[in-house]
């Protein structure tokens, strides 16, 4: 194989790997957005929360795995509490109320973060059994942790696919995304469904932050960076479709990677050009339901 081809393959790997991480972040957003109709601008803040929790507990316990085990239930509880206390009163209201509320949540969480952790950049140690690199061509090696992240994202995607396509809960979730009133009139407790979905959405975002923490480091405002790209993924994939989010994540990851490599001058645009193209072709996204 020629060198150029090998580096092309490596870039392909880069794109897929980035895409999988995006899926991890965007999957929770698409669930909450699609089923509950909540435009959750604070999704990135939950991502940040996860990263800081991982940093905190990893420092305290010395183990990232243990930190995740402690932090995920905390994220779920926080999601449940937020749903009950602040989101529920707003279901009947206009989208603008939710935008305002979730924007407020961003500010609250940023300030809380600043009070508790300060404004410094922190690193989280990669677990020692993953702290090495796999040599590739040309002196380049691939950090094992990144490969492990991809594996986790794939496993999670598989798990979500199973739950959503093969279980009763998944059936209700799909039905809820497609037609909420119908689900309600069939006697399903939509309130409970919302609570579960929202908590899972928060937990997914936080989990993404925890997994990404060693590779991305932990810093103020880290959530806002992933928020926009997550919305792009959700819109391309079709609102509420986890399958769509998966495909869209990979598309965005690849478009971004090859945009940087092939057209660096317009690399900032490639993802948005992709979004525009998809929306022209399919206005509701790849797997979106018409409204």
């Amino acid at each position, binding site marked *: 194989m020629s060198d150029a081809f090998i580096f092309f393959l490596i870039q392909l790997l880069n794109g897929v790997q980035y895409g999988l991480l995006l899926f991890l972040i965007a999957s929770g957003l698409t669930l909450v957005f699609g089923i509950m109709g909540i435009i959750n601008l604070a999704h990135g803040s939950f991502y940040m929360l996860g990263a800081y929790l991982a940093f905190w507990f990893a420092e305290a316990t010395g183990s990232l795995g243990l930190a995740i085990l402690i932090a995920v239930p905390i994220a779920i509880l926080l999601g449940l509490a937020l749903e009950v206390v602040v989101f529920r009163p707003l279901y009947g209201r206009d989208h603008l109320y939710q935008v305002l509320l979730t924007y407020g949540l961003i500010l609250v969480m940023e300030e809380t973060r600043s009070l508790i952790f300060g404004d410094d950049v922190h*690193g989280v140690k990669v677990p020692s059994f993953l702290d090495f690199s796999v040599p590739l061509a040309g002196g380049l*090696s691939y950090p094992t942790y990144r490969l492990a992240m991809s594996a986790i994202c794939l496993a999670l995607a598989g798990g979500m696919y199973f739950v959503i396509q093969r279980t009763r809960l998944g059936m209700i979730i799909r039905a809820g995304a497609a037609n909420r009133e119908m689900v309600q009139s069939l006697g399903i407790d939509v309130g409970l469904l919302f609570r579960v979905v929202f908590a899972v959405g928060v937990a997914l975002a936080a989990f993404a932050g925890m997994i990404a923490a060693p590779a991305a480091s932990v*810093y103020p405002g880290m959530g806002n960076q992933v928020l926009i790209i997550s919305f792009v993924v959700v819109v391309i994939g079709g609102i509420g479709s986890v399958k769509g989010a998966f495909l869209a994540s990979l598309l965005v990851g690849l478009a971004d990677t090859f945009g940087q490599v092939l057209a660096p001058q317009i*690399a900032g645009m490639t993802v948005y050009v992709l979004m525009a193209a998809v929306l022209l072709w399919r206005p509701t996204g790849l797997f979106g339901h018409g409204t």
Partner: protein
Amino acid sequence: MKIETGITTSRRRVLKGMAAGAGTIVAASVVPTRFAIGQQAKLKLGLMLPYSGTYAALGKNIDDALRLAINEKGGKLGGREVDYVTLDDESDPAKSADNANRLVTRDKVDFLIGTVSSGVQMGIDKVATDNDVMLIIPNAGVSAATRELCAPNIFRTSFSNWQPAYAMGVVAAAQGKKRAAVISWDYAAGKESNDAFSEAFAKGSGKTEQQLYLPFPQVEFQPLLTQIAAAKPELVYAFFAGGGAVKFVKDYAAAGLKASIPLVGPGFLTDGTLEAQGDAAQGMETTLHYADGLDNAKDKAFRAAFKKATTRDADVYAVQGYDSGQLLLAGLAAVKGDVGARKDLIAAMAKTEIDSPRGKFSLSKAHNPVQDIYLRRVQGLENRFVSVAVKALADPATGCKMA
């Protein structure tokens, strides 16, 4: 607690007779009684800095150190009490002009102090120029501020992007390197820095063969690291700061490139980030106008005072904030707090030799520091002083009509 610069002293003598004393009396203790009429209004400093987001820690250090400098001299500027008006610029260039305008027109500040981000700086510069408001830049290195956009009312106590970058080019060429790659975010500061490095590197017969940019503030570096591995340069010069710097340095090491291709950059690549960067940054060489382990009494005193005041360790941003305070002190002492005496104020500020923790420096005709740039090496959690990379380096000030 004395006004320390000789220039200021003579200035004062010329301006306001001998009654004020020969400049050795603490200005703050004398002036209020003597200038009770018409000078009682507080002097307003508009601090437009990032108090949130990626650069929040930098803004905080600048703010605290500036106040420290003023508080060390009795908390007053030219005898006037100081009113600090702070405004979070959010490092958002889109809001920059509006924010600066608010400070100027609504709060009517006497001085604008700001900011960290070069993108935001352009907006502040424009407002300062349009309204002819005094401006001190405590960090942003955007070269234009003391080049084509230079103005009598605009001062900088930090650096121009050109300075540390050029010095690193000199160092790299002296090390005998011939082929370099440069990488940064696709924004003004990054391009200026990379170009200045390439300029000095080319003078030493090196060649920058690869210029890599990614959209700001994206931190997915893997595709560009792959590009670097494919091109195999002898050296990589990178301009990143804050969270981006942490991630880039870690990713660079994790990609296995650190062992074969040295990664260098301006000091921001490893400043305030070492704890998070961990082993990935050890041994890296960077250039900046400040370093750990400078053998200088002023620096030791400053670090102790800053630690005492804030419980945090001082860094280059704190030094720049402190020197902004020192520049204010010197200028306003010369005119005894009368900001209306604009010409004298500007002349006094421009002539001040600042006794900075980084070492003494003066200002160029374009109002940018003429300063030593140090080569530093990462050792543990410090950027240890190695040598003076370039002595008394002045920005070329291309296009500045004052220079």
